[in-house]
């Protein structure tokens, strides 16, 4: 135990501050990816609920592909392919140098794409659980499509989707560990750097595990409170 404390000291002699910085990076990339995922999820749900079969097919392909293929493979694709795609665009504008995308950007895009597929399903389910009669009633009241969306759909879809989005968040948070393979210095990367230089892998990976537990426990609590808040007006039997 004292050895552990010594290894995790704050400042230049220990790895405490580095690990906490890694944790903040994990949190940052998870938040960015989760928000991107929700945006993608809204578009994805719109695609999958479209009345045109071709549009539905696009949405279907996206969610099937992402949910049926390992996340690590998707991250590799975007890590190796992301820079090349950007370079190909740059070449059109006459820029021939090697461009490397920021690890944070790749991580956000990759995890956002993954969590977007799961968010699509959650949001689609939430949209479908708004009672049809309400939509008819809103139309009968003469609401425009936008007003109907804003007043009837959004508040209820948000409430129905909340538990599912909580799961998506947990998934995204844990998936950030995979971004360490592309070099973003988050918890996992920091832990492997530290264990490489101190030869104490158990200590640092255990610390990493504890930091993840702290993040998941707190965000679990947060989503629980958000659910209570969102359902404050709902009558329960």
């Amino acid at each position, binding site marked *: 135990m004292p050895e552990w404390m010594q290894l995790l000291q704050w400042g230049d002699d220990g790895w405490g501050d580095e690990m906490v910085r890694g944790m903040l990076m994990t949190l940052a990339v998870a938040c960015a990816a989760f928000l991107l995922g929700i945006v993608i999820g809204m578009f994805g749900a719109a695609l999958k609920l479209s009345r045109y079969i071709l549009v539905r097919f696009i949405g279907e392909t996206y969610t099937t592909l992402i949910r049926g293929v390992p996340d690590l493979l998707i991250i590799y*694709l975007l890590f*190796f*392919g992301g820079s090349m795609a950007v370079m190909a665009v740059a070449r059109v504008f006459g820029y021939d140098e090697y461009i490397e995308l920021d690890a944070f950007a790749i991580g956000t895009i990759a995890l956002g794409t993954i969590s977007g597929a799961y968010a699509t399903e959650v949001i689609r389910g939430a949209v479908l659980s708004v009672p049809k009669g309400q939509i008819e009633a809103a139309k009968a009241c003469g609401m425009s499509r936008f007003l109907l969306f804003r007043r009837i759909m959004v508040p209820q879809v948000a409430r129905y989707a909340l538990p599912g989005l909580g799961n998506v968040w947990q998934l995204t948070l844990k998936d950030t560990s995979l971004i360490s393979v592309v070099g973003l210095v988050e918890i996992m990367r920091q832990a492997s750097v530290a264990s490489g230089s101190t030869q104490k892998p158990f200590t640092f*990976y255990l610390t990493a*595990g504890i930091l993840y*537990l702290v993040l*998941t426990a707190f965000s679990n609590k947060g989503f629980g409170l958000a659910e209570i808040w969102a359902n404050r007006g709902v009558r329960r039997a």
Partner: protein
Amino acid sequence: MDFNLMAEAFPKILDGLPVTMALAGISLFLGFFLAVGIALLRLSSFRPISALAYGFVYVFRGTPLLVQIFLIYYGTGQFEAVRESFLWPVLREAWWCAILALTLNTGAYTSEIIRGGILSVPFGQIEAAKACGMNALMRFRRIVFPQAIRQALPAYGNEIILMIKSTSLASTITLLEMTGIARKMISQTYKPLEIFLIAAVFYLTLVFVVTRAVAYVEFRLNPDRRAARTAKGKDLTTVAALGADVR
């Protein structure tokens, strides 16, 4: 699109398919027994035991699988005692470390699924079984477990798919399963899209087969729903009449 490369990648990634399937299969098999054990411990009325089981589940579900794999593969070697013990030949091998991590992980997730299934068995049935004089083991074997499995099957199908995808993490500790081979090829050729598509085809096929298989087992295990399904096609009045006859 480099079709030659895709043709080249196909047999290479196919070589990784048995490794992927073995990793998923072995750890799902072992993890299932672990999960039943943990689920029963969690339902124990003796607080410390259920708390211990809950702690196990909480830790393994709250941390990324990658941490668990690294902790077992890289971490255990830190201790002299482990390196000199009989466990070292096992913990030294990436293969067994991956199996161990995946087993513990799926054990934790599956135990929650099974617990849900066990809790879904109506209490009246257990009371009735007790009244018939069944002991705890027989109650579990004849009444609780068959129904719990049936209830838990759809969720367990998801878990199988998650595990198939999780085996890709074994590539981070040098195992050459499908993702590991794909990764190696991508870094040699810098053609990620082609190789990704081939690997994706393998994973999607595997996932598709599993989904079908689970749906089939679900169909077999639910004769009541099966009857309803065949009856749907028939003339409803005859079915109703048949039902009335039986009653």
